[in-house]
């Protein structure tokens, strides 16, 4: 089985992303959506938490949410995949179960 975790909270404000990372097992994917996309930025207080986890976990971030918030793709941590709503659907279908870290 392989799990998809979605995170929609800013890691600068809440512990959702930290908790999702802690509970993702090797081969899982984490998708950042809504205010969760701030977790994909380079150079924030929480960027290291993400880069440290990238060996075991695949990270994805919603492009439409990045654009809405004025976050240029150049600021995204290398290795995080930028997707759209179609990509979100694909991730859901490719993983056996989806868990939302609300």
């Amino acid at each position, binding site marked *: 089985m392989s799990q998809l975790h*979605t995170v929609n909270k800013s890691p600068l404000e809440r512990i959702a992303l930290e908790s999702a990372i802690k509970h993702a097992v090797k081969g899982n994917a984490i998708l950042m959506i*809504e*205010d969760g996309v701030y977790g994909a930025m380079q150079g924030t207080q929480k960027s290291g938490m993400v880069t440290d986890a990238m060996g075991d976990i695949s990270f994805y971030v919603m492009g439409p949410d990045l654009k809405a918030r004025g976050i240029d793709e150049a600021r995204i941590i290398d290795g995080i995949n930028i997707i759209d*709503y*179609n990509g979100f*659907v694909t991730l859901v*279908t490719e993983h056996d179960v989806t868990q*939302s870290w609300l």
Partner: protein
Amino acid sequence: MKISVMISEGPYTHQASDTAYHFTKAALEGGHEIFRVFFYHDGVNNGTRLATPPQDDRNIVNRWSELAAEHNLDLVLCVAAAQRRGIADPDEAKRNGKDADNIAPGFRISGLGQLIEAGIQSDRLVTFGD
């Protein structure tokens, strides 16, 4: 693939209903079946026909109603959550002695069992909330 969606927050205040809408639309366009969209917690507030958002903004309620009409979607509002928050269809209004109802077209009110059934019947269940 058969997918169900749970929405736990009301319109406008949180992005949950927006993201769920775009996800649902993309799933339908991708050829997947949406077994059910279940509205729980404040999510039931997506199902009121009394909303009049500003002209220059999206109409979240109507958008759901239209998507439901187009794709024959099953939009279910949890009855217990709806009662607490004041969302009623004609039957509910009558049963609870209310003089009006406010449910929007394309939505129906039913029990939490519909959520569990969605979990059992669907290949995937995706939750959008706060």
